[in-house]
């Protein structure tokens, strides 16, 4: 039958690509919400082979609430109330970013194939490729966009990628909800703090363009 977890991974790749070429902040925030929900669903569907247990499902709901609703909600609010000009303003253009995305996926397939992980199933390999691509694309967004808020989005995307790598490699973490909850809490607070700083940057500079901040240098 249809391989649902593979489709999920394809959806993540899709969201990564679309975010690299997206020129609207709102679209970017919506993409992040979508990606957050799909990423949260991945461990649930990978574990279905061993049967879904109640804890896992509850944690899935929590993840969706945080990554799919709360964090994008904060970003949405920031874009809606703070940012006047909603164009993304790339340092590296959209086409070059897309091209970077293509190079990234070639790289991640190369890496995954050369790890020679015999214990990995096909879908785990695809998971690893997706994870590395997502992480790399997050870094690209982080470096190639000028607005402070897009940098936060890049950070989130990178975090999603690392979370997926954790899902592929470190299965033990997913059984320790205390630890995972703490990581999630950190992420939420990080976005909150960044949101507050973005807000203040906007008040002080009348823009969220990081190029305006060049006072401190040697």
């Amino acid at each position, binding site marked *: 039958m249809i391989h649902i977890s593979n489709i999920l991974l394809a959806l993540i790749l899709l969201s990564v690509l679309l975010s690299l070429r997206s020129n609207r902040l709102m679209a970017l925030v919506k993409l992040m919400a979508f990606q957050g929900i799909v990423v949260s669903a991945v461990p649930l569907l990978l574990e279905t082979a061993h049967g879904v247990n109640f804890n896992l499902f509850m944690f899935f709901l929590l993840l969706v609430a945080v990554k799919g609703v709360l964090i994008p909600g904060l970003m949405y609010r920031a874009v809606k109330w703070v940012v006047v000009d909603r164009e993304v303003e790339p340092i590296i253009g959209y086409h070059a970013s897309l091209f970077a995305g293509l190079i990234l996926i070639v790289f991640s397939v190369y890496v995954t194939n050369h790890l020679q992980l015999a214990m990995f199933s096909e879908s785990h390999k695809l998971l690893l490729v997706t994870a590395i691509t997502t992480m790399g694309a997050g870094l690209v967004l982080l470096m190639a966009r000028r607005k402070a808020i897009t940098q936060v989005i890049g950070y989130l995307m990178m975090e999603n990628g*690392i979370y997926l790598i954790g899902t592929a490699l*470190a299965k033990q973490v997913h059984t320790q909800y205390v630890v995972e909850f703490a990581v999630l809490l950190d992420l939420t607070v990080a976005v909150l703090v960044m949101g507050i700083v973005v807000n203040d940057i906007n008040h002080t500079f009348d823009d969220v363009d990081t190029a305006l901040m060049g006072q401190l240098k040697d």
Partner: protein
Amino acid sequence: MLQLVFSVPIIAGSAVFFLPVKLGRSILMATAFLHSSITALEWFHVTGPLQTKYFSNTPEGMLVLAIMSFLFLFISLYTVFYMAEVEMSKEPIFNASMMLFLGAMSMVAVADHIIMLWVAVEATTLTSAPLIFVHRSKESLEATWKYVLICSVGIALALLGCFFIIFSMEMVNIHVPISFSSLNVVATQLNPVWLKAGFVFIVIGYGTKMGLAPMHTWLPDAHSEAPSPASALLSGALLNCAFLGVYRCHQLMFNAGLGAYSSNVLIAFGLTSMLVSAVFILNQTDYKRMLAYSSIENMGIIAVGIGIGGIAAFGAMLHMIHHSLVKSSLFLSAGNILLGYGTKSIAKTRGMLKLFPRTALTFFAGFAGISGFPPFGLFISEFLIILGAIKAGRYVAISIFILSLILIFAGASRLAMQMIFSDRENVEQLIPERWKRTLPPIVLLLTSLALVIWLPDSLYLTIQNAISSIGGTVNG
């Protein structure tokens, strides 16, 4: 109770957000005292050696915790008087963040679970961010943004490193709890390739936080823009916490028989940091930035010392203690200078000896200490590191090491002399110096001096226990 050491400051800090300023200051002091007494109890194992699923008291952790607690005691004292002189609209937030920051750092010191350690390090970033942008000036916003973003991204890479280390265990089908204490037991069976990859990512991640070049770019900005008590805490306590994360992984590598690899990585990063700070310190115009670059240099020294091992590891641990004491003292003095002159520019801070004699004394003494002059501890620690390197036959590394030390000394002394001894040229005294603000830096300096003359046995033993796992000895 090991958990008390971080839960007390966190609870107190959360409460202070909603309390009036005056009460907040007293709670800050009370927390500092309570924290140091809990630390003392843990230090002397009054509660017995304790280990839970996520936390344990290790010698290196206790060392970092003790330094932090001691510093916090005096820095909080200073903060109370400092705050009384500067008008700060958001003081409850500042006080609360100080305590939350202390809680997060204490959590780093006692964390044993790999991911818990990561969570705590990330928490230190988040709780200290409000400390930096409390003034809300353009510069402090920029510094905060750089700090939060660069450190968060760096630490995210450390999480990747943690996953790699966990995978190196799952790959060979070992299932032990993912804490450093359990992993150290099975270290030799772990997959070396993944372990190495994990170590590199962790050094990059926590190294960002520790201020190792080339990931140090946030550090001078954050240290110079934060209010001085916060800078002192960042430099004296936070950098040690980040170092602790690297050190724990280095121990794991050593137990896995990959010590040579991780040592080389540490030495490379350490020397790079020293060279970079040597270059940037030469033409500084801002004395707080100068101190910040000196912190990068000293973190580099510690990394090199740990990497060389043997007696140099002992030197590195001593260096960590003395650097924390002296550098915090310097930052507190810098706070006094800033209050007195109202500027951070070296060129405009002249004739300190006549205007602010006590501050000039503490600043000069601190400067002598940080440059490694004999009466202070940094002389001994640097000497031990050089000795260890020569014994280990690392001549190239040690030549770069000594060269950087000379360059930094030459660059920084020019600036410090200018500030202290130049003529007084129509500079006004904004706020006169007061004993209650000059006392804490003096006490910190005296502590450093005292530790040179007499190193307590328990401290000596703790250092010895901390470095024995990486083959460090006191006898050379």
